[in-house]
Protein backbone atom coordinates (compact mmCIF):
# COMPACT_ATOMS: atom_id res chain seq x y z
CA UNK A 1 0.00 0.00 0.00
CA UNK A 2 1.22 3.49 -0.83
CA UNK A 3 1.15 5.64 2.31
CA UNK A 4 2.74 8.75 0.82
CA UNK A 5 -0.57 10.15 -0.46
CA UNK A 6 -2.41 9.53 2.80
CA UNK A 7 -2.99 12.34 5.26
CA UNK A 8 -2.11 11.96 8.93
CA UNK A 9 -5.62 11.07 9.94
CA UNK A 10 -5.84 8.33 7.34
CA UNK A 11 -2.50 6.97 8.51
CA UNK A 12 -3.71 6.94 12.10
CA UNK A 13 -6.80 4.98 11.06
CA UNK A 14 -4.69 2.50 9.10
CA UNK A 15 -2.33 2.08 12.05
CA UNK A 16 -5.18 1.52 14.49
CA UNK A 17 -6.52 -1.01 11.98
CA UNK A 18 -3.27 -2.97 12.21
CA UNK A 19 -1.03 -1.50 9.49
CA UNK A 20 2.29 -1.04 11.28
CA UNK A 21 3.80 0.61 8.22
CA UNK A 22 1.42 3.55 8.71
CA UNK A 23 3.24 4.39 11.94
CA UNK A 24 6.57 4.20 10.11
CA UNK A 25 5.24 6.78 7.63
CA UNK A 26 4.00 9.07 10.42
CA UNK A 27 7.44 8.82 12.03
CA UNK A 28 9.21 9.52 8.75
CA UNK A 29 6.96 12.50 8.10
CA UNK A 30 7.23 14.16 11.50
CA UNK A 31 10.34 12.87 13.27
CA UNK A 32 12.55 15.89 12.62
CA UNK A 33 9.89 18.40 13.76
CA UNK A 34 9.22 16.47 16.94
CA UNK A 35 12.82 15.57 17.71
CA UNK A 36 14.20 19.06 17.01
CA UNK A 37 11.48 20.65 19.17
CA UNK A 38 12.46 18.35 22.04
CA UNK A 39 16.18 18.84 21.48
CA UNK A 40 15.92 22.64 21.40
CA UNK A 41 14.22 22.56 24.78
CA UNK A 42 16.48 20.07 26.56
CA UNK A 43 19.77 20.72 24.69
CA UNK A 44 20.93 17.16 25.27
CA UNK A 45 21.00 14.63 22.47
CA UNK A 46 20.62 11.52 24.61
CA UNK A 47 17.85 13.01 26.70
CA UNK A 48 16.07 14.17 23.53
CA UNK A 49 16.26 10.61 22.15
CA UNK A 50 14.75 9.24 25.38
CA UNK A 51 11.93 11.79 25.43
CA UNK A 52 11.25 11.22 21.73
CA UNK A 53 10.97 7.48 22.37
CA UNK A 54 8.77 7.96 25.45
CA UNK A 55 6.56 10.31 23.45
CA UNK A 56 5.91 7.64 20.83
CA UNK A 57 5.35 4.96 23.45
CA UNK A 58 2.51 7.14 24.75
CA UNK A 59 1.31 7.74 21.19
CA UNK A 60 1.27 4.01 20.44
CA UNK A 61 -0.47 3.11 23.71
CA UNK A 62 -3.14 5.75 23.15
CA UNK A 63 -3.75 4.81 19.52
CA UNK A 64 -3.82 1.08 20.15
CA UNK A 65 -6.17 1.41 23.11
CA UNK A 66 -8.65 3.36 20.98
CA UNK A 67 -8.42 6.51 23.13
CA UNK A 68 -7.25 8.86 20.33
CA UNK A 69 -9.75 11.62 19.68
CA UNK A 70 -7.64 14.39 18.13
CA UNK A 71 -8.92 13.96 14.60
CA UNK A 72 -6.92 15.97 12.10
CA UNK A 73 -4.42 17.17 14.66
CA UNK A 74 -1.88 14.38 14.92
CA UNK A 75 1.29 16.51 14.99
CA UNK A 76 0.08 19.10 17.53
CA UNK A 77 -1.15 16.22 19.70
CA UNK A 78 2.25 14.47 19.58
CA UNK A 79 4.04 17.75 20.25
CA UNK A 80 1.78 18.32 23.25
CA UNK A 81 2.77 14.91 24.63
CA UNK A 82 6.45 15.70 24.03
CA UNK A 83 6.07 19.13 25.62
CA UNK A 84 4.47 17.62 28.73
CA UNK A 85 7.25 15.03 29.02
CA UNK A 86 9.88 17.79 28.81
CA UNK A 87 8.08 19.73 31.55
CA UNK A 88 7.86 16.55 33.66
CA UNK A 89 11.58 15.98 33.23
CA UNK A 90 12.53 19.47 34.37
CA UNK A 91 10.05 19.29 37.22
CA UNK A 92 11.61 16.05 38.43
CA UNK A 93 15.11 17.45 38.04
CA UNK A 94 14.02 20.70 39.70
CA UNK A 95 15.99 22.72 37.21
CA UNK A 96 15.49 24.81 34.13
CA UNK A 97 17.15 24.13 30.76
CA UNK A 98 20.91 24.68 30.78
CA UNK A 99 22.41 27.52 28.77
CA UNK A 100 24.98 26.04 26.45
CA UNK A 101 26.99 27.27 23.51
CA UNK A 102 28.10 23.94 22.14
CA UNK A 103 29.33 22.45 19.01
CA UNK A 104 31.26 24.74 16.69
CA UNK A 105 28.10 26.16 15.14
CA UNK A 106 29.25 28.52 12.39
CA UNK A 107 26.11 30.14 11.14
CA UNK A 108 27.23 32.28 8.27
CA UNK A 109 29.50 29.79 6.52
CA UNK A 110 26.97 29.45 3.75
CA UNK A 111 25.88 33.06 3.43
CA UNK A 112 27.67 35.86 1.64
CA UNK A 113 27.93 39.49 2.81
CA UNK A 114 29.93 40.96 -0.01
CA UNK A 115 29.38 44.62 0.87
CA UNK A 116 30.75 44.27 4.36
CA UNK A 117 34.25 44.95 5.56
CA UNK A 118 36.15 42.01 7.02
CA UNK A 119 35.72 43.54 10.46
CA UNK A 120 31.96 43.94 10.03
CA UNK A 121 31.73 40.41 8.71
CA UNK A 122 33.61 39.08 11.73
CA UNK A 123 31.27 40.98 14.05
CA UNK A 124 28.24 39.66 12.22
CA UNK A 125 29.62 36.12 12.15
CA UNK A 126 30.26 36.18 15.87
CA UNK A 127 26.84 37.66 16.59
CA UNK A 128 25.02 35.00 14.63
CA UNK A 129 27.25 32.29 16.01
CA UNK A 130 25.71 33.10 19.37
CA UNK A 131 22.11 32.87 18.15
CA UNK A 132 21.67 29.46 19.70
CA UNK A 133 22.89 30.78 23.03
CA UNK A 134 20.57 33.75 22.75
CA UNK A 135 17.59 31.48 22.18
CA UNK A 136 18.49 29.68 25.39
CA UNK A 137 18.60 33.05 27.19
CA UNK A 138 14.96 33.78 26.37
CA UNK A 139 12.36 33.33 29.10
CA UNK A 140 11.12 29.74 28.87
CA UNK A 141 7.60 30.62 27.69
CA UNK A 142 8.99 32.72 24.80
CA UNK A 143 11.52 30.05 23.86
CA UNK A 144 8.77 27.42 23.86
CA UNK A 145 6.61 29.37 21.44
CA UNK A 146 9.53 30.10 19.11
CA UNK A 147 10.49 26.40 19.07
CA UNK A 148 6.94 25.15 18.56
CA UNK A 149 6.32 27.66 15.80
CA UNK A 150 9.59 27.24 13.94
CA UNK A 151 10.60 23.64 14.53
CA UNK A 152 7.18 22.12 15.22
CA UNK A 153 5.56 24.11 12.40
CA UNK A 154 2.56 24.64 14.67
CA UNK A 155 -0.15 27.25 14.24
CA UNK A 156 -0.57 29.82 16.99
CA UNK A 157 -3.96 28.28 17.70
CA UNK A 158 -2.32 24.90 18.36
CA UNK A 159 0.50 26.48 20.37
CA UNK A 160 -2.11 28.26 22.48
CA UNK A 161 -3.87 24.94 23.16
CA UNK A 162 -0.66 23.11 24.05
CA UNK A 163 0.54 25.82 26.41
CA UNK A 164 -2.91 26.60 27.87
CA UNK A 165 -2.92 30.28 26.94
CA UNK A 166 -4.96 32.42 24.57
CA UNK A 167 -3.94 32.84 20.93
CA UNK A 168 -3.15 36.49 21.68
CA UNK A 169 -0.78 35.47 24.45
CA UNK A 170 0.95 32.95 22.19
CA UNK A 171 1.33 35.63 19.51
CA UNK A 172 2.59 38.10 22.09
CA UNK A 173 5.19 35.61 23.33
CA UNK A 174 6.42 35.06 19.79
CA UNK A 175 6.76 38.79 19.34
CA UNK A 176 8.56 39.14 22.69
CA UNK A 177 10.91 36.34 21.63
CA UNK A 178 11.74 37.96 18.29
CA UNK A 179 12.18 41.41 19.80
CA UNK A 180 14.38 40.07 22.57
CA UNK A 181 16.51 38.09 20.13
CA UNK A 182 16.94 41.16 17.95
CA UNK A 183 17.90 43.32 20.92
CA UNK A 184 20.34 40.71 22.19
CA UNK A 185 21.92 40.48 18.74
CA UNK A 186 22.19 44.27 18.47
CA UNK A 187 23.74 44.48 21.94
CA UNK A 188 26.22 41.75 21.12
CA UNK A 189 27.12 43.41 17.81
CA UNK A 190 27.63 46.73 19.55
CA UNK A 191 29.81 45.24 22.31
CA UNK A 192 31.98 43.47 19.73
CA UNK A 193 32.43 46.71 17.80
CA UNK A 194 33.38 48.57 20.97
CA UNK A 195 35.97 45.98 21.97
CA UNK A 196 37.49 45.53 18.51
Amino acid at each position, binding site marked *: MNFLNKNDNELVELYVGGK*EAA*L*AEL*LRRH*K*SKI*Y*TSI*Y*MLVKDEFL*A*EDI*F*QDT*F*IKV*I*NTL*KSGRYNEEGKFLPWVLRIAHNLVIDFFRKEKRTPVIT*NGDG*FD*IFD*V*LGFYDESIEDKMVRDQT*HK*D*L*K*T*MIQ*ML*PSEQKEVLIMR*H*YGDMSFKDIAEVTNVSI*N*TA*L*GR*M*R*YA*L*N*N*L*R*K*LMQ*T*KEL*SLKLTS
Partner: protein
Amino acid sequence: MIQISTQDLQLLLLETREELSHTIGAEEKEFYTSIKPELNREIRNPHESTIDRIMAYSKGV
Protein backbone atom coordinates in the same frame (compact mmCIF):
# COMPACT_ATOMS: atom_id res chain seq x y z
CA MET B 1 30.76 33.47 24.42
CA ILE B 2 28.17 36.15 25.07
CA GLN B 3 28.91 38.53 27.90
CA ILE B 4 25.65 40.21 28.79
CA SER B 5 24.83 40.62 32.47
CA THR B 6 21.57 39.31 33.89
CA GLN B 7 20.72 42.91 34.80
CA ASP B 8 21.17 44.04 31.19
CA LEU B 9 18.99 41.16 30.00
CA GLN B 10 16.26 41.98 32.51
CA LEU B 11 16.29 45.62 31.38
CA LEU B 12 16.03 44.56 27.76
CA LEU B 13 13.12 42.25 28.49
CA LEU B 14 11.34 44.87 30.58
CA GLU B 15 11.63 47.48 27.83
CA THR B 16 10.30 44.96 25.35
CA ARG B 17 7.25 44.10 27.45
CA GLU B 18 6.31 47.74 27.81
CA GLU B 19 6.34 48.51 24.11
CA LEU B 20 4.53 45.45 22.83
CA SER B 21 1.04 44.78 21.68
CA HIS B 22 -0.13 41.27 20.93
CA THR B 23 0.51 41.15 17.21
CA ILE B 24 3.50 40.27 15.11
CA GLY B 25 4.42 43.28 13.04
CA ALA B 26 6.24 43.62 9.74
CA GLU B 27 9.52 44.36 11.51
CA GLU B 28 9.36 41.16 13.56
CA LYS B 29 8.40 39.15 10.49
CA GLU B 30 11.35 40.57 8.58
CA PHE B 31 13.71 39.77 11.44
CA TYR B 32 12.26 36.27 11.75
CA THR B 33 12.80 35.71 8.02
CA SER B 34 16.40 36.88 8.39
CA ILE B 35 17.21 34.35 11.13
CA LYS B 36 15.31 31.40 9.62
CA PRO B 37 18.34 30.02 7.75
CA GLU B 38 20.29 29.94 11.02
CA LEU B 39 17.40 28.39 12.92
CA ASN B 40 17.04 25.76 10.20
CA ARG B 41 20.62 24.67 10.68
CA GLU B 42 19.52 23.27 14.01
CA ILE B 43 17.01 20.86 12.48
CA ARG B 44 18.02 17.30 13.28
CA ASN B 45 16.69 13.77 13.40
CA PRO B 46 16.61 11.03 16.01
CA HIS B 47 18.91 8.06 15.52
CA GLU B 48 17.60 5.23 13.37
CA SER B 49 18.04 2.92 16.37
CA THR B 50 15.45 4.97 18.27
CA ILE B 51 13.00 4.64 15.38
CA ASP B 52 13.70 0.89 15.29
CA ARG B 53 12.99 0.57 19.02
CA ILE B 54 9.71 2.47 18.63
CA MET B 55 8.61 0.23 15.76
CA ALA B 56 9.62 -2.87 17.73
CA TYR B 57 7.62 -1.65 20.73
CA SER B 58 4.61 -1.04 18.50
CA LYS B 59 4.74 -4.54 17.06
CA GLY B 60 4.91 -5.99 20.58
CA VAL B 61 1.84 -4.14 21.90
